[in-house]
């Protein structure tokens, strides 16, 4: 017999028949020795039995049809499948509308020339307005720029010379694209108008004819020759950029 005192919790556990046999025997002995507590606990036990009998009738009633679990499960299955059907219709609808809306404003291909011209436009918008450090390697460092970018692109690349078109090379930088590293060259003229040439190896559209930039906010031309893609972008009117693009292309073909 343990010497643990009998607690109120023990008495309730006794009523609820939750005690281990050993402890139950201890409580029984205690109740015999304390008849006043024994009467109170007996009252609780009677109360428990009475409640159980009174409520047993409810549990014995036949279940109404609304509480038939198979029906509820089946109902949910139907509900879900109709929900999925509705969701699928909605997605198809959104896809259709999205495609229609996007047709004029976004490149339809995310890999070829369309991606390149997007990267060139983005680079122009980020770096051309930069007054402090528009380029990573300055033109004054000469051959170093060409060599570094050729190494990183794993393709020989020549810095286009645009002096005959009135643009000076400012320098260049390496650009991260989702298609790998790209070489960016930046030029300016006497009025501080800037141009950007972006070049990177192409995974698709290895050879693509020159076409004007389809984005409206930056002008330019893109093309691909022998696996290397080029994009020239700037603020001047598109047509005034065409001879410059032709010049870049001609020089690149001599590599």
């Amino acid at each position, binding site marked *: 017999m343990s010497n643990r005192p009998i607690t109120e919790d023990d*008495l*309730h556990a006794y009523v609820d028949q*939750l005690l281990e046999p050993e402890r139950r025997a201890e409580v029984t002995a205690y109740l015999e020795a304390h008849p006043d507590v024994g009467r109170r606990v007996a009252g609780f036990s009677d109360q428990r039995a009475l409640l159980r009998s009174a409520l047993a009738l*409810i549990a014995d009633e036949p279940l*109404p049809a609304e509480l038939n679990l198979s029906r509820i499960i089946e109902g*949910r299955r139907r509900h879900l499948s109709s929900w999925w059907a509705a969701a699928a219709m909605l997605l198809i609808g959104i896809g259709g509308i999205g495609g229609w809306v996007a047709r004029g404003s976004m490149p339809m291909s995310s890999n070829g020339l369309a991606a390149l011209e997007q990267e060139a436009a983005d680079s122009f918008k980020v770096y051309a307005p930069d007054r402090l450090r528009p380029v990573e390697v300055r033109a004054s460092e000469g051959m170093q720029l060409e060599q570094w970018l050729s190494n990183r692109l794993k393709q020989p690349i020549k810095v286009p010379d645009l002096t005959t078109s009135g643009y000076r090379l400012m320098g260049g930088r390496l650009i991260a694209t989702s298609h790998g590293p790209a070489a960016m060259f930046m030029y300016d003229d006497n009025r501080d108008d800037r141009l950007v040439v972006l070049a990177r190896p192409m995974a698709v559209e290895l050879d693509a004819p020159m076409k004007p930039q389809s984005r409206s906010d930056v002008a330019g031309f893109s093309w691909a020759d022998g696996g290397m893609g080029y994009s020239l972008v700037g603020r001047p009117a598109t047509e005034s950029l065409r001879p410059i693009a032709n010049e870049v292309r001609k020089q690149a073909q001599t590599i």
Partner: protein
Amino acid sequence: MKDMLPQVEPLIPALRRYARALMRNPTAADDLVQDCLERAVSRWYQRREGNTRAWLFTILHNLAVNQFRQSAVRGRHVTIDETNEEDFGQEALQEKKLMYWDVLNKLTRLPDDQRAVLLLVAVEDLSYAETAKVLNIPIGTVMSRLSRGRERLQQEIEGPSDDAGRNVVKLRSLK
């Protein structure tokens, strides 16, 4: 979903019994159980391993608490006094029926939190720990509500003039 039916179906009468004793209104109680089962079906795969019984009672109890709050706002209160006596089983002997009717009536006079503990422990056979989980309260609170609920119901049963229950030496563990 195949495993759900054999695990949940046998518990529906108990859920119904608990809801009826809590809600006091048979129609509202069955609505509550139906709500509970629908939720159980939709969350069957989200439940943690463990006691399906305690899990179902938790869902049911939370729905009941929401109902209490709403009816408190509306000020509507249907008690067993107002319900038809016939709701408590036709086959039982008249005398017993009256006795059952009487104790359930007295049960409704208990505060909601004490009644919930008393029903889960004494009628639904949940352990004290399971009851604590279902009601989201500490186990010590379960024990004190059980004690107060039993004491109070006993006073009701023995009649308000009878104060024998109050004279006994009360033993409380000092934890």
